[in-house]
């Protein structure tokens, strides 16, 4: 049998992920003097940032009542106190500077006057502070892409990071990538590898993210010995499109944007009613009502649907306030267009009820990082949705955009530093790259077996039903057993139909399956270990929040088994816990 061919290359910094976190890391690493290669799993514009409404929380000074302390406090409140306080503080402090960076790249933030930004509210915040631009995530990704072009940074489209390679001390020394456009393996030896591959929304049957977000980077980090934090917390956007199938699950943001609460934190958000016309959210949050945080709203809606009070199509109804239509059209014309095309004119004008359902949106947990975006595995840097701890148990709407800019930049800086220090023999690990590539080709040879899309659907259904918005110990245990069965008996039988190596979607999905299972397992295991309800994590067998559980669960792979450990929350005054762990390998 001929040896799997792997083309070796070298770079200082290898970045996986073409969203804003990856791109911002590329800019920062390049500007710090490093040679950068960025891997995009598909065409470079296919990423989650692109799909975002581009709302950007930052303290600009334009709202005299608002301060970075208030933003920081809102972040902790929303996160139910289990955020990494240091990361939350950094987010609040650096968000505005990064917004100005985007301005310098050519993004024209919406304004009320020539130098005054326009601001709106999001659900859960206490002050009006959210910036935005009419071109949303599209504009953000475009201006950043052109910054990469300007610096001559190499972007490899259709390159899926399949795994990282570590030396005998456990330091990450390179990344193995599959060039899907050719079906060829490339091994990039690097001084540092940045994981900015986004979240795991595709783990769920109904999700808002792009098809490529199968948690690849998080799984790769886990397999390399990295610690994950808060992985049991998955944010569901409360409202998303119910139909048509291609649009199902695509975010409609929050009820706050469809009512006068859009401008005034004390005003009403759009009302949500079940098939009896009842405002069921009042049962869950009588104070903030439909202006509540995403976790409360998503759960409320899911429970209505599960208890049979949803619409025939499987959603609930949102009653928008037509008074905000003119503003909504001006700020978010793309959303109005989608409402028109998917639902109809009445809905687009915010004059008719809009059918909505919750959908998996954002991975709150992820790789455990310190303020420099380093994790416990040397040579591995993580930023953006793939990292955990910034937002705790629930993220504020509008906080992901600043997160990816702030921590994307920090990741790039750290990567350039680590690459400079490292003068190791990366190329000598080519053998390990070959071995891993050979493993990942196993499914191509099989003539009999099960197709990856079928296995993916099973995982997605298990996650949606049991590790989603509504959880309990029994179902979580069952799910872990189902995952074990899939891993041991089904995964080894996965086959691909196509004999072509070029753009072999089934092969890509086969690689994704291992990642999905790794994360799914980690999510189910840590959900089982947290006997309470907090933020996005809701357990019917433990429906109250337990103050003893104001702590984080750290997940780590050790000798093939998952280790879940409870650790104290990282407070502001603590020395970074990562410093102790650097060098300690599984």
């Amino acid at each position, binding site marked *: 049998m001929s040896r799997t061919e792997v083309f070796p290359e070298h770079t200082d910094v290898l970045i996986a992920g073409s969203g804003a976190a990856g791109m911002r890391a590329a800019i920062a690493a390049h500007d710090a003097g490093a040679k950068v290669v960025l891997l995009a799993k598909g065409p470079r514009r296919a990423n989650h940032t692109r799909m975002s409404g581009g709302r950007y929380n930052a303290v600009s000074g334009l709202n005299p009542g608002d301060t970075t302390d208030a933003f920081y406090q809102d972040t902790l409140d929303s996160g139910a106190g289990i955020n990494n306080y240091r990361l939350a503080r950094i987010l609040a402090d650096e968000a505005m500077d990064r917004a100005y960076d985007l301005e310098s790249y050519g993004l024209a933030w919406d304004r009320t006057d020539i130098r005054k930004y326009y601001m709106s509210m999001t659900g859960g915040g206490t002050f009006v502070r959210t910036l935005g631009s009419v071109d949303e995530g599209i504009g953000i990704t475009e201006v950043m892409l052109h910054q990469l072009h300007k610096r001559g940074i190499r972007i490899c489209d259709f390159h899926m990071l399949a795994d990282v390679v570590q030396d005998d001390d456990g330091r990450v020394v390179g990344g193995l990538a599959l060039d899907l456009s050719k079906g060829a393996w490339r091994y990039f030896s690097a001084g540092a590898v940045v994981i900015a591959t986004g979240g795991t929304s595709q783990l769920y049957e109904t999700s808002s993210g792009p098809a490529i977000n199968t948690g690849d980077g998080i799984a790769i980090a886990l397999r390399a010995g990295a610690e994950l934090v808060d992985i049991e917390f998955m944010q569901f956007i409360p409202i998303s499109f119910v139909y048509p199938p291609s649009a199902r699950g695509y975010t409609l943001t929050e009820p706050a944007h469809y009512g006068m609460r859009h401008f005034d934190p004390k005003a009403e958000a759009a009302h949500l009613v079940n098939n009896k016309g009842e405002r069921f959210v009042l049962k869950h949050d009588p104070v903030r009502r439909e202006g509540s945080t995403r976790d409360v709203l998503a759960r409320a809606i899911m429970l209505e649907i599960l208890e049979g009070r949803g619409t025939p199509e499987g959603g609930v109804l949102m009653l928008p306030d*037509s008074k905000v239509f003119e503003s909504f059209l001006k700020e978010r014309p793309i959303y109005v267009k989608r409402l028109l*095309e998917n639902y109809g004119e009445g809905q687009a004008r915010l004059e008719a009820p809009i059918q909505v359902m919750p959908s998996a949106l954002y991975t709150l947990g992820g790789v455990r990082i310190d303020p420099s975006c380093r994790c416990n595995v040397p040579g591995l840097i993580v930023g953006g949705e793939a990292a955990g701890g910034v937002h705790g148990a629930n993220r504020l709407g509008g906080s992901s955009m600043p997160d990816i800019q702030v921590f994307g930049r920090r990741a790039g800086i750290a990567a350039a530093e680590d690459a400079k220090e490292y003068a190791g023999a990366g190329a000598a690990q080519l053998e390990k790259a070959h071995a891993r590539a050979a493993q990942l080709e196993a499914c191509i040879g099989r003539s009999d077996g099960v197709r990856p899309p079928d296995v993916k659907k099973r995982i997605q259904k298990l996650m949606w039903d049991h590790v989603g918005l509504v959880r309990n110990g029994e179902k979580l245990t069952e799910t872990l057993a189902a995952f074990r069965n899939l891993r041991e008996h089904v995964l080894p039988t996965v086959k691909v139909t196509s004999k072509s190596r070029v753009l072999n979607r089934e092969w890509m999905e086969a690689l994704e399956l291992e990642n999905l299972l790794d994360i799914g397992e980690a999510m189910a295991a840590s959900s089982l270990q947290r006997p309470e309800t907090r933020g996005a994590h809701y357990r019917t067998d433990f429906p109250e929040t337990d103050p003893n559980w104001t702590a984080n669960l750290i997940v780590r792979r050790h000798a093939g088994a998952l280790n879940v450990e409870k650790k104290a929350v990282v407070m502001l005054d603590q020395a970074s816990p990562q410093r102790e762990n650097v060098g300690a390998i599984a």
Partner: protein
Amino acid sequence: MSKTALPRNTTRQAEAMLYGEAARKLHRVSGAVIILFVLVHVIVQAVRHAPIFATANAAAPWLQALQEQNWVHAILFFCIAFHTFYGLKLLAGELGFRLHYKTAFWAVVIVSALIGLREVLRYAGI
């Protein structure tokens, strides 16, 4: 319902008539017709009136009738009108007049068709 214009519904693009394509094809065809007409007209007039071509003229008595066919006139006038007006529409756009491609297309086609139709009516004595 409020009167503000909504963004377009672009989910049936492949079912719509492609105005730019139709306009361009018509502009090319009408341009070719005009050029062909000028060529033919010059030759026919030469044959009919230049003494040197008298024998050829005698051999082709149908040349006179050809010039009097209403459909020949109608097509020719439509082509001249369409080519001119569409050309003016392009010019107007470049000078800063905002014209919607759909409205402009139909306006030009209808006016040109009317001019063509006028020839048919004129020959019919109306």
